[in-house]
């Protein structure tokens, strides 16, 4: 794939300079533009313009009849509000616990599945991926029910061990952790499937060589499998970090950010600011801060996981 792409890119400027004017080039290729047109219109209208608009809005105070320039007021407001720091802290805690847990458990589960026969492989792959195809709304509804104080499954299970029922979602000390436990116990299906695919492409000769050198199974796993899976690990860490910075559905379906601000997250805060309080400028500033937080985290992870060999 790659060489073709480079050849094509390299050929481009030469063609332009040598042969024809830009206008003739455009005219000659009108059909290519026609092919692009539908997607391009949608892209411009519903992605490009809104992205630019979001930046503009974040510097404005939104009013129904004409917005006013507010400079950095919205951003100042973001960094001065305690609600923002609460949401940031909860989102960080959520991410810092669930991402490593999910990625590592996906690695372990994939490692357990990989040596199995074809039939068992696809059975277990299905069992772990199936819960991920159902909507988070449904998952959140059933977990809310399982966390129910009086009749929920979990308090019943606690009862087996003689423990008192816990008001999982209803008290500040446990609400966020209940959501974290839930996220950890939902299998990271994408991770398992990608790890399995990557493990399948590791050459057997490496393991054979290691066997000759007297390595045991665990050593092979630690010194061959894990290092070779690094690109997949990087991708999965990025993917799940981005995902958990955007955690929203569980919050609105299960706790609404409460009790107090104990489960408030960044996206839920943006949603509330924008669509409950209708402070559009403020909400835009919050969302752009979120964007930069995600961007910075992605860059850090990319660096760390790429170069720390």
């Amino acid at each position, binding site marked *: 794939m790659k060489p*073709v792409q480079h050849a*094509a890119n390299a050929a*481009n400027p030469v063609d332009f300079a040598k042969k024809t004017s830009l206008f003739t080039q455009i005219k000659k*290729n009108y059909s*290519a*533009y026609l*092919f*692009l047109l539908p*997607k391009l219109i949608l*892209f411009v*209208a519903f992605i490009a313009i*809104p*992205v630019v*608009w*979001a930046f503009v809005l974040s510097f404005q105070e939104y009013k129904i009849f004409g917005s006013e320039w507010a400079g950095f007021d919205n951003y100042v407001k973001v960094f001065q509000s305690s609600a923002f720091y609460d949401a940031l802290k909860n989102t960080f805690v959520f991410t810092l616990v669930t991402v490593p847990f999910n990625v590592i458990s996906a690695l372990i589960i994939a490692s357990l*599945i990989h040596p*199995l026969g074809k039939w*068992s492989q696809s059975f277990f792959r*299905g069992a772990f991926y*199936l*819960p991920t*195809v*159902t*909507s988070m*709304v*449904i*998952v959140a*509804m*059933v977990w809310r*029910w399982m966390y*129910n104080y009086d*009749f929920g*499954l979990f308090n019943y299970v606690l*009862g087996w061990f003689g423990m008192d029922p816990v008001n999982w979602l209803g008290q500040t000390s446990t609400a966020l952790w209940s959501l974290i436990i839930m996220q950890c*116990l*939902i*299998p990271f299906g*994408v991770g398992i*499937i*990608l790890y399995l695919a990557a493990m399948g492409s590791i050459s057997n000769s490496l393991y054979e060589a290691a066997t000759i050198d007297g390595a*045991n199974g*665990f050593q*092979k*796993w630690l010194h061959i499998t894990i290092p070779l899976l690094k690109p*997949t690990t990087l*991708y999965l860490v990025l993917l799940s970090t*981005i995902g958990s*910075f955007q955690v*929203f*559905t569980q919050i*609105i*379906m299960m706790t609404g950010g409460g009790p107090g601000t104990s489960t408030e997250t960044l*996206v839920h805060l*943006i949603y509330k600011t*924008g669509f409950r309080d209708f402070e*559009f400028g403020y*909400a*835009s500033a919050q*969302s752009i801060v*979120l964007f930069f937080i995600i961007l910075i985290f992605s860059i850090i992870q990319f660096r760390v996981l790429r170069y720390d060999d």
Partner: protein
Amino acid sequence: MPKLNKTIIYALLIVFSIVSLLPLYWVFSTSLQLSSYQDEDLERSVSYVDSNPPKMYPMGIPEYFEHWGKARDAEKAGDDKDAAYHREVMHEIVTDSFSGFTTLFTKNNIGRWFLNSIYIAVIVTVGILLFDSMAGYVLAKKQFPGRNLIFYCIVGTMMIPGQVTLVPMFMMVKNLGIMDTHWALIFPDLSMVFGVFLMRQFMYSIPDELLDAARIDGAGEWKTFWQIVLPLARPGLAALGIFTFMNVWNSFLWPIIVLNDADLYTLPVGLKSLQDANLASFKLLMSGAAIASVPMIIVFVLFQRHFVKGLTLGGVKE
């Protein structure tokens, strides 16, 4: 892998899969639970769903078979009246077990939400497949001024989280006058760009010779695309189609912002409204959840291969 005993591996995996599948099981088990029984000590009817300890499976199942056995025995003994009684009870058990579903369809309009979800997901999927493969094709196979610029603009926005455009998109939809209509869902969904990226990657693998041959045979651009490129891109289309369908079917944040009219709700929005109404029992909520999850489960079971393929296509690059 550590040299673990096969049985230990299987045991671990089975325990993990039970944990993984338990919530889904609980959805279906609760949705089919009998609603209540007459408690003799308390002398009132007690809910099976809200009971402690929780009932681990739908209580209707053993009761149904108990009465089925009794009805058969009564028939053998020639006691028609008793047999008819047991048949009647069996019928009641079935009606009661499925009462959550019947209520949702008769009183809560879930059929409407279901159709809305289906048709929006189908329209968006078809549109995405067509537009994204058209765009991906020319971006991979044609030379024209602005090609790289367009591509990098499109790919660049993939980095930006969707929440950034929430507010401006809301204003855009308002200005276009499509607030509280399905167009407010369809247009933004159709503009998702991941498919362009995916299809472009895929189109690179189509040999240029084939396209040249078609051109020499006098096929126009559209004919080449429709009859040669699309059939060759079928595996990519299958993967993209499934993921688009799944994303649209499960999409939640945007629909709850733009939809107000209960008749226009999609399933996730409808489910939220049921939960918010606070009147619904957990049996009813879980029945709704079951209805909303069944289509994706069917799609997954039928197309498992494509799911795996789609994930690996989109995921392991380099």
